[in-house]
């Protein structure tokens, strides 16, 4: 028997595979394809303090082995998420992570406090890296002192374990990781999307209404692997890995790089069953490469 379980601060996962924030809504739509109980956990779409309408359309574009998105954090706001969405997900008895996004430190803190008081949320994923909103988001993700500050204040305001989601759009990812570790983060989540653009040749302007969008999908996997590999050598807290995962082999690559658990984003759009399918074949893939558990594979791509 291959043991798929992983224990992280605040999260006992029966397997390491979760859908990534923003690529799974609040689970309702995918629950029409399969029983969400199979998942290791679920990371909800970003919550902001108030209802947000997001950016104008077009909001997505296709790129070679990837896509750009500029949804702009559309969501009904933390109150409605707690009232309408969390109870639905709670039925499945899997760990629930709330993705928290704000424009100001105060907004982050307020959302964290609110989730802290809710029943069923097991951990926070602090989204300091959303490249698709005009104010807030990305600065927190590129400036180590701002990242440290927001992490500290959120930690102080909530008892829930905090996973800080790092942006790959930085010169020095290790510096960012260390900053949030020092600030008390319980774990890291990486990577968010890379800022990209596509130009519509006919209209002679950026295709996305927001001009730029976040690049996700298989195209970015080498960057995610590199960043996790580097960060793993410098921090002690666990890493949730993501960026271009499509197969169980990809999952193993992330584990070897140093991730303790993974999230699958864009691939859900290609194949709505991708998460359960990965979970199903993961034991075989681990075995094929000589591992008898997920835990045994974590960080094993680092030579002695």
């Amino acid at each position, binding site marked *: 028997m291959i043991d798929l379980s992983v224990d992280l601060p605040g999260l006992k996962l029966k397997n390491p595979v979760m859908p990534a924030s*923003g*690529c*799974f*809504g609040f689970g*309702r*739509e*995918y629950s*029409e*394809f*399969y029983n969400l109980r199979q998942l290791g956990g679920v990371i909800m*779409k970003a919550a902001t303090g108030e*209802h947000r*309408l*997001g950016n104008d*359309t*077009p*909001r*997505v*574009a*296709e*790129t070679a*082995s*990837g*896509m750009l*998105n500029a*949804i702009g954090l*559309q969501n*009904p706001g933390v109150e409605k998420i707690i009232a309408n969405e969390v109870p639905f997900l709670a039925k499945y008895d899997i760990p629930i992570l709330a993705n928290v996004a704000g424009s100001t430190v105060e907004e982050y803190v307020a959302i964290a406090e609110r989730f802290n008081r809710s029943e069923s949320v097991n951990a926070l994923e602090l989204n300091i890296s959303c490249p698709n909103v005009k104010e807030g988001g990305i600065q927190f993700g590129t400036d180590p002192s701002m990242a440290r500050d927001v992490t500290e204040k959120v930690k102080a305001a909530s008892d829930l374990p905090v996973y800080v989601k790092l942006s790959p759009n930085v010169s020095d990812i290790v510096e960012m990781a260390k900053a949030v570790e020092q600030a008390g983060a319980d774990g890291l989540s990486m990577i968010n999307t890379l800022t990209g653009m596509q130009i519509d040749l006919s209209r002679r302007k950026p295709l996305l209404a927001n001009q730029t969008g976040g690049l996700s*999908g*298989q195209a970015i996997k080498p960057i995610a692997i590199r960043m996790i590999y580097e960060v793993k050598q410098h921090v002690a807290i666990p890493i949730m890995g993501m960026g271009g995962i499509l197969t169980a082999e990809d999952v193993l690559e992330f584990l070897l790089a140093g991730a303790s658990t993974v999230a699958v984003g*864009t691939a*859900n*759009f*290609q*194949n*709505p*069953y991708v998460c359960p399918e990965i979970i199903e074949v993961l034991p075989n893939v681990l075995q094929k490469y000589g591992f008898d558990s997920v835990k045994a594979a974590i960080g094993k791509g680092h030579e002695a």
Partner: protein
Amino acid sequence: MKKRVDMIVQSVREIALDTFEMTLQNAETANTAKPGQFLYLSVEGHTLRRPISIADADPESGTVTILFKTTGDGTKHLSMFCSGMNLDVIGPTGNGFYCDAGTVKTALLIGGGIGVPPLYYLGKELRKNGIGVITVLGFQSKEYVFYEEMFQEFGKAYVATNDGSYGYQGYVTDILDQVGHFDHYYSCGPISMLRAITSKLRTHSGSISLEERMGCGIGACFACVIPADNEGGYRKICTDGPVFAAGEVRL
């Protein structure tokens, strides 16, 4: 439970310039598809699926027909599929066209370009329910015209081309005054056409089918929203649409 299904390509043929008709075999889909719904097709080598409207469904033969224009790499790839090949599909997806046979006695179909296909399946179903059908179709030019005779089987069908190379010269809106009485209109086509129609037919009840770039295609990612005056302030084209009542969303 929703499903991803495999559909077998039965035939592909070019029916007008850059315009292909593809027949797909899948009994379940053929049985459940409603006019206005679309298939969300996976094309190898492409990250995102392609939404294509259902142009016809025949429960007897277990086939679904789609029509598409080769505007980019994905549709070009699709046009090169051969019979016997497999297509990975999510669908039928989205809602269908609204029709209250109680109030609608005569329907007006207004299609522009590659917006015409879903109206064919709709017209067929309307006629089946005894509803009268008048059609107005607009194309860029003669080479792009398709399905005219098939709409004529439903009733009077007008065709306009932008350059006058076939039928009336002008836009579909130029013909609307000639079509006589109708109880409800159904329209699908470019957004500029839909804007012109909904404004011109302001006083009529109508349904429009919209397009937008999609991510998930099933309502989870918020890629395909359109502003609306409902409580949330928006509707999703992939699941709340693609068909909306004229006036329900802000074009």
